[in-house]
Structure formats: structure tokens, C-alpha cells
């Protein structure tokens, strides 16, 4: 792939300038946000570039694992925060995201699809984690919402003798569906509406489109499957937070 000079990177600021110009023109006051995100993108990407360069150079599995753990940890923290209405949300999102990442990498490297090397494992983990993070957040938020808005039905089920999982089943079902819709929708339009980043990257880097496509199909399937695993784990851990041993629905203060 052709190497870009630092000067060329600076030239690309013309896009940012354009964004600033239009935000002025339409008086939408997004100028500050635009500048902040441009600076953040620059700093974060530069930092990750150095970190990856360093880790690839070390060629030590321990560092690779540490790197992935940090990514998964940040993602888990984010989801846990978004789903903070659920008790133990941070623990739940951590378990789900770490486990999903682990399983996905295990399967991919077990099938020999990607070699167990830093330069493959880390970016692929990054994709998995970024992808399942949304699933975990959505699942937490939706389940809380469903259980609270269907409180009477859940309690009616309990009083008819349902176990917590039975009483929560309709809410769980809806939480899974609503958190998976974006994932499935994206898979439907891939290649037509959107060229996935990974594939674009490979083509830009000089790989043949067909090789890039094959790899992308694997990635797409992985990105389709992994959020289901996360959402399932999140749901199965999260619904328990709403019930006690006496089969009571516990919604916390004010409910």
C-alpha cells in the first residue's frame, strides 16, 4: 500500500474545514464538536498506532492478551454504564464481552481462518468487541425497559406459578429481538449499501477483491453470530437481577 506522508494527512484537514464551513453556514453550532472529534480522532489513532507498533514488535502473547483485555474492558465499562439501570450491569457486560471475544477468537484461530498472531488477532478482536458492545448495551437497556413496562404481566405470570425465567420470557424475547435488529439489518445490506471497512482496507492495501471478499464473508458471519452470544449471555444474567428467591419481581426504589 502506498505510504501517506504527514503532510498529506494534514492536507486531509480540508474535509474538517468543509464540515466547519457548513456548520457555520447552517448555524448549527457544531463547530466545537467537529474540532473536538477531529482532534480526538487524530490523537487516539496516533496513540493506537504507536501501541500496535510496539506490541507487534514485542511478539509476545502476553501483550496481545493484555491489549485485548484492555479493549474488552473499555467496551464492558461503556455497556455497563449505558445499562446501569440493571443491577451488576458492569459485571454482566464484562462477562458477556470477554467470553464472546474469547470464543470468537478461539473459533477463528481454531479453524485456521486467522493465524494466532498479533497483527491478526488484535484487529479482529477489536472488530468483535466494537460490534458486541452495542449489543450488550442495547440488551441491558431493553430488558430493563420491557420488565418495567410489562410489570403487571410479569407479576401476573409469577402469581400463576411461573418461575422467574418463565415470567420474564416475553421480555427477554423482545430484548433479544430489538438488540439484534441493527446487527441483522447491517448484514442484509452489506456489499450493496456499505463496503465494510475491513474489506475496503484490504483492497486499498492491494489484496485482490475476491480474497478480500472471502475474508469479509468470514468477518460478517462472525459479526452476525457474536452479538447473539453476547446478547444471550447478557439477558440470562440480567433478568436474574430482577427476581429474588421468593419469586418476587424486585424493581427497586419507587416501584
Amino acid at each position: 500500500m502506498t505510504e501517506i506522508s504527514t503532510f498529506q494527512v494534514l492536507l486531509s484537514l480540508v474535509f474538517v474545514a468543509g464540515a466547519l464551513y457548513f456548520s457555520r453556514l447552517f448555524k448549527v453550532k457544531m463547530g466545537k464538536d467537529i474540532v473536538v472529534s477531529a482532534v480526538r480522532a487524530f490523537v487516539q489513532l496516533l496513540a493506537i498506532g504507536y501501541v500496535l507498533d510496539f506490541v507487534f514488535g514485542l511478539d509476545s502473547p502476553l501483550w496481545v492478551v493484555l491489549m485485548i483485555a484492555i479493549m474488552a474492558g473499555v467496551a464492558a465499562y461503556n455497556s455497563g454504564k449505558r445499562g446501569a439501570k440493571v443491577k451488576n450491569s458492569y459485571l454482566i457486560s464484562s462477562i458477556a464481552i470477554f467470553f464472546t471475544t474469547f470464543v470468537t477468537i478461539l473459533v477463528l484461530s481454531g479453524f485456521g481462518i486467522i493465524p494466532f498472531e498479533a497483527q491478526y488477532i488484535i484487529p479482529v478482536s477489536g472488530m468483535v468487541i466494537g460490534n458486541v458492545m452495542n449489543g450488550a448495551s442495547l440488551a441491558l437497556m431493553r430488558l430493563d425497559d420491557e420488565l418495567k413496562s410489562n410489570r403487571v404481566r410479569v407479576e401476573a405470570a409469577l402469581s400463576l406459578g411461573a418461575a422467574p425465567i418463565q415470567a420474564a420470557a416475553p421480555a427477554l424475547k423482545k430484548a433479544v429481538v430489538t438488540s439484534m435488529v441493527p446487527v441483522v439489518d447491517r448484514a442484509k445490506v452489506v456489499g450493496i449499501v456499505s463496503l465494510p471497512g475491513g474489506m475496503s482496507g484490504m483492497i486499498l492495501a492491494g489484496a485482490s477483491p475476491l480474497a478480500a471478499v472471502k475474508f469479509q464473508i468470514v468477518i460478517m458471519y462472525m459479526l452476525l453470530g457474536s452479538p447473539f452470544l453476547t446478547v444471550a449471555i447478557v439477558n440470562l444474567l440480567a433478568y436474574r437481577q430482577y427476581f429474588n428467591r421468593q419469586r418476587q419481581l424486585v424493581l427497586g426504589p419507587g416501584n
Partner: protein
Amino acid sequence: MAIVQFENVTLRKKDEKNNEVTILSDLSFSVEAGTVFALAGPSGSGKSSALRLINRLDDCSSGNIYIDGKEIRAWDVRDLRNKVGFMFQEAALFEGTVMENVLYGLCIRGLRKCEHEPTALELLKQVGLSPELLHRNVESLSGGQKQRVNLARTLALNPDIILMDEPTSSLDPAATRTIENLIQELNAQGRTFIVVSHSLEQIERLASACVVLDAGRKVFAGSTRELFAAREITNLLINGKEDGDD
């Protein structure tokens, strides 16, 4: 014999600002087996909260509740909920058909197949609903029909005690009559009913004894006849406050 007995029951909960609020204070009363017992009081007086305790949807903060002579916390909650059925205020029906609703309790216990039509039809008959409704979606039913499905769903498990939270509050007079007649029929078969109501007429028609709550405290307990002799209490029920003038 008392089938349900409250002994100095206090219920506190936390509100949204995490402050403790007392919902029921030191409440004692008992319900005789085989009777229709009314739980009355103005809106917000704690009737629904008291009813929930009997099904152990909540636990009281202090005091004791005895069901059939046994402290409620000594019951296996599954046995308790077999014995005590709860018909919720809003027709809290599940999305789906009439059959799915009435067979729910049996189906989740694995006692009947979830599509065991003869059982479902038998239950519809018990509440006077036409067999044609069996496969109808509950959304399409009238308020009165929904409440009868709600009752059938509770009856499926053949509970000894049936709790009803304002079973007729959203019904027209004809549908109200139907539900009241059903209560009387089922009571004649030996079931105990505890019915939340704020209609004096309904209490008179149905109940032999009642307790009246106001702001979580018992302000009356006794027979229905005694209730009608206590003017300040009937005024409370009519006007929602004790002095009776607006």
C-alpha cells in the same frame, strides 16, 4: 376458621427518592374460610399493597401473615401461589389467544399441554364465555370478556383463595353483574374471595365482612351490616374522606 390472618402487619417501601414510606401500618384482620371478604378504602389507602402481600408478591416489613394457619414465609412460594390465586386490576392478560391465557398456569407447570382444548373449553364454560372465543386474540375482546378470561386463567389452578383487585372498576353495569354472579357461584362452591372494592353497593351485594383502610391504617373491621351502621366510614368510602363535606 381464619384462612387469612394479618397480625400487626407493616409495609414500608422506598420511593423514587429513596425515602422510606409507610404504606401499611400495624394492620390486623382475619378472613374466614368460605366467605367473600371486602377490602375497601379510598384510592391510595393501601388496598392493592395489602392484596399483594397475600400472594407474596411483596414481603411485609414487620408483623405476620398466616395463610391456613401457617406463616406465609414458611410456605413454599409455589404451593402458596397454587392455593392463592390473584386476579389483577388491569386485565393483565398475556399477548396471544384466549386459550394461551387460560391454560398458562397449567402449561408452565407441565400439568397440561399448552393446547389442551377440552380443559380450556371447560374453563371458558365456568366463566360463561362462548367456546368460539377460544382462538381469538385477547386484544379483540371487550372489557367484560377480558376480565372473564382473567378470572378463568386464575381458576385454572383451582385455588382455594382468590384475590381480586377492583375486578369490575372498568366494566359497565351488565358486565359487573356477570362478574359478581360468578363470584357468588364460585363462593358457593367453597372458595374464599378477598375483593378490593370501593363501591359500597358492590360490598353490600357480595361481602359478608370487610376491612376499611385509610392512608394505610385500618379504620374499620367488621361485618357488612356493621359497616352500614358506621356513617363516618361509609362517608369516607363515598367521598374519599371522613367528614363527608366537600
